């Protein structure tokens, strides 16, 4: 709603130098220009403040208070440092240690998988590259909660399908997903697409000239990859490492489904447990959340420093054909490795969910039992599909995701534009605020947002709008990073050339910058859409009876022990996300950019 105002105003930002040259009362004109220049920045900062800072302030208040801020109960008088003593407890320290191990471990797994897939997809001559691109993206269709449920069905020690099969075959081994390595594995495979997408866009948009120069000067392929390609891909590598680290460290559903039975407590599950203790210990949870936030902020700042030291512009007005690396004997083995990843991340989980949703009895003695007549039936799936709950949740989810994706992408674009294309002093602040949610567990953000929107005199609580707001707030860093990475790679001269040739700034943005950034913007929109479709942790405190979304439905079913219903909703949930993704991609692909030269 209010988001539209800055869109109209932001072109004025860069257009002001032109007006400033006018004759006459120069000083007052400059003042007006200043005002006009700062106006959009101020609006964006205000929006971001309400979206991100206010919820955090309320959580911070809760951390240093002995009562929970709630409408009619914002007591500043009861400030205390007692909650901080909680941070030194063995449980808190243990959870912190586990979170660091989980974050680092899954970041490594996700980076290895993502970089490998991105490389063979973007730069090699391996067969089935188009399909490998799909493989790299596909796990994004599967919400982490659903993935974790699927893997617990596959590989729980006593009743997992894989272990039943091993027993059937007389193999005396148990694949136990309920363990630290299991948790890292599941998080790693389901967060690999983040690394893949960032790496892929970096590798495929890389300036071919630089690599060619290396080749011309006699550098062998290996040297070229090491001294040119790798350093150029560094921001994407670092970016995805930090991103996956932060996302997995704060991941709640997977840690809850996989880590909890293993006795592995991470900070988010610990926070969740504090919140769901009797009575809820929101204050202690908030204090832990504050520390987690501070720690991740430091990581984010360090990473920003690394990026800002160097210039990574690789898209210019010149032609761009990155060099293909011949794999020779490794062509098929590499493709097969990619297919194996597909099996682990998509195929097996979907089969497991389908089987679980169709099982006539929850107990499976042997895999062959599933193939007996009457062992499987569509009745549960049919029942779920036709239920009012599911249809309402479906409608809600789609609406929320589209709303969040549109608002989030627009906000991200304006924020990155102010930061990277104007000299506005607010740019750094905007970036910092936009990146902040990365360091805030979504579950804590959810509570902060609940309090925020109950306090503000805007009636969005209990509507789908608050869920969309939550999705924008929680996923802003991803959207912003996506848009600004693509903006960073694009030379500003292109837009400025259009202005010099007489186009207005607005026209230049619409006809030059936006088309050039089409891939970046489309993928940010898709990212927002997919992430919002999958969102659970923040929504869990914001939904009301009429605004349940699909992820809530799955979690409720799981939480309530309705595992078959949970599996059935999960299957349909994935189908919906896939359909939505295909539709969105198809719409996005319709508008092809005009050739540059």
């Amino acid at each position, binding site marked *: 709603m209010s988001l539209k105002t800055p869109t109209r105003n932001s072109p004025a930002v860069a257009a002001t130098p032109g007006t400033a040259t006018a004759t006459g009362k120069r000083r007052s004109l400059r003042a007006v220009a200043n005002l006009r220049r700062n106006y959009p920045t101020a609006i964006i900062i205000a929006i971001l403040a309400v979206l991100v800072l206010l919820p955090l302030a309320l959580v911070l208040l809760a951390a240093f208070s002995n009562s929970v801020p*709630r*409408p009619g*109960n914002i007591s500043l008088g009861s400030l205390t440092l007692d909650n901080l003593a*909680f941070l030194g407890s063995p*449980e808190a320290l243990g959870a912190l240690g586990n979170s660091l191990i989980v974050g680092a471990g899954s970041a490594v797994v996700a980076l290895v998988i993502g970089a490998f897939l991105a490389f063979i997809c973007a730069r090699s001559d391996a067969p089935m590259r188009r399909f490998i691109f799909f493989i790299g993206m596909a796990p994004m269709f599967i919400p982490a909660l659903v993935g974790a449920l699927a893997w617990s069905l596959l590989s*729980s020690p*006593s*009743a997992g399908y894989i272990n039943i099969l091993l027993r059937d075959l007389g193999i005396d081994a148990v694949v136990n997903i309920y363990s630290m390595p299991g948790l890292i594995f599941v998080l790693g495979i389901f967060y690999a697409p983040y690394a893949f997408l960032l790496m892929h866009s970096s590798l495929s948009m890389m300036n071919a000239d630089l690599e060619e120069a290396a080749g011309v000067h006699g550098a062998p392929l290996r040297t070229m990859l090491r001294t040119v390609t790798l350093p150029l891909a560094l921001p994407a590598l670092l970016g995805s490492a930090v991103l996956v680290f932060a996302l997995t460290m704060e991941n709640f559903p997977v840690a*809850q489904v996989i880590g*909890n*039975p293993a006795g592995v*407590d991470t900070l988010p599950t*610990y926070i969740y*447990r504090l*919140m*769901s*203790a*009797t*009575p*809820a210990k*929101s204050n202690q949870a908030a204090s832990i959340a504050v520390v987690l936030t501070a720690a991740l902020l430091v990581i984010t700042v360090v990473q920003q420093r690394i990026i800002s030291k160097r210039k990574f512009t690789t898209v210019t007005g010149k032609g761009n054909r990155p060099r293909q690396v011949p794999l020779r004997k490794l062509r098929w083995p590499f493709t097969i490795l990619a297919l194996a990843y597909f099996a682990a991340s998509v195929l097996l989980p979907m089969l497991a969910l389908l089987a679980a949703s169709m099982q*006539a*009895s*929850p*107990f*499976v003695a042997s895999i062959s039992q599933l193939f007996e007549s009457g062992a499987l*039936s*569509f*009745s549960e*799936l*049919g*029942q779920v*599909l*036709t*239920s*009012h709950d599911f*249809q309402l949740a479906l409608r809600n989810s789609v609406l929320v995701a589209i709303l969040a994706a549109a608002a989030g992408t627009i906000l991200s674009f304006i924020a990155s534009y102010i930061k990277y294309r104007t000299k506005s002093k607010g740019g750094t602040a905007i970036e910092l605020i936009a990146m902040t949610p990365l360091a805030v567990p979504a579950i804590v953000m959810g509570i902060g947002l*609940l*309090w925020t929107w*109950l*306090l503000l005199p805007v009636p969005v*609580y*209990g509507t789908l709008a608050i869920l969309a707001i939550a999705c924008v707030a929680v996923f802003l860093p991803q959207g912003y990073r996506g848009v600004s990475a693509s903006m960073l790679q694009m030379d500003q001269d292109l837009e400025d050339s259009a202005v010099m040739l007489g186009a207005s700034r607005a026209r230049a943005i619409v006809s030059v910058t936006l088309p050039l950034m089409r891939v970046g913007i489309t993928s940010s929109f898709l990212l927002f859409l997919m992430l919002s479709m999958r969102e659970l942790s923040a929504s*869990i*405190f914001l939904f*009301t*009876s*009429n605004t349940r979304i699909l992820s809530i439905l799955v979690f*409720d079913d*799981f*939480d*309530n*022990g*309705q*595992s*078959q219903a949970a599996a059935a909703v999960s299957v*349909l949930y994935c*189908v*919906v996300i896939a*359909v939505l993704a295909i539709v969105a991609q198809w719409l996005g692909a319709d508008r092809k950019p005009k050739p540059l030269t």
Partner: protein
Amino acid sequence: MKLKGINTMKLASKLPLIGSGVMLAIGLTACGGAQAGTSVVTGAAQVKTDDGLVINGETIADKATYDKAKTETLSLYSGYTESSENALVAAFTKDTGIKVNVVRLTPNKLAERVLSEKGAGKLGADVIRTSDYRIAKTIEDAGAWQSYEVPGASAFKDVSIDGGKFTRMFDSVYTIGYNTQLVKAADAPTSWADVVDGKWQGKLGIVQGGSGGSTAALNRFMESKLGPEYFQSYASQKPTIYDSLGAEATALARGEVAVGTVTISGTNISAVQDKAPVKFIVPKEGLVAYDYFLGMTSAATNSDAAKVFMNYNFSKQGQKVFAQIGEYPARTDVAPPTIMGVQLPAIDSGQVYRMTNAEAISSGKDDLAKWNKVFGYTK
């Protein structure tokens, strides 16, 4: 029935988005029919609606109330196990024709939601059900209840609480259950002592001690009846600790654990409706009962439907439904349940432990602190 389900599915797989609306009409018949065959709630009530709502000869609502209630959709926030609440609500809607929107929440999410919504003047619930006395009191302190004296409630002991702010409708029962595919009936434990004798090391499940009114009662039972060492004995069996009763029930049904703490109603529904290989025992030391409360909120916009729902819950028919699900009715003139062929002992037989509300307030916190410490769980 099955055929209809398959057809529905085939169609739907072709039209996942557009088709779903059309599905509703086709599907409802298949859905309703399938449930009737496997539900734990059986038998039809005699319903008369020509002058108010009369079920099996008992007046549930007068004409004015019932006519108004029929036009409303009740909003229920419930901390009751989802499958059990669904069974009750299905029976209610079938008998009264009044639709109910259930929001099922774990006890603390329920409290947090109610308090936040109430504070903002946006409480969306007409009625709230919780098993946690402390939560019910918190809601009372926030002024979110509306006194409503359920007809006939005053005739029974500690049913109407604090002048009708909220009402005890039934008692759920905690006991020991096992997976019948993994454990033969002859080998199954017969007492709480059996569970911790070492035989089930690593094959046991339990729900975290702070998950709500249910575990509060279980903790108190273990502490006061089984001895202060019992927590330690249980913990030394290295049980798998689940966050909620539902999660543990699923694990037991799938055979991830062989033996665990269960509710009788949950086991009943799991075995009858989901055909899970699970069974419960009546341990020598006794069963653990815990109260479930229902109350009308101060924000109730569908107050007539809320009244009918409250009355129905406490009617003989409603109480019978609870008994069929596997709960002890609050009305002592309705027989205690016979579940899966087991006649449960009378609630005052000495075989059923029931925590008092005073104990819930006085010992709840300390019990939980000890539980968490012994089981190595969150402080």
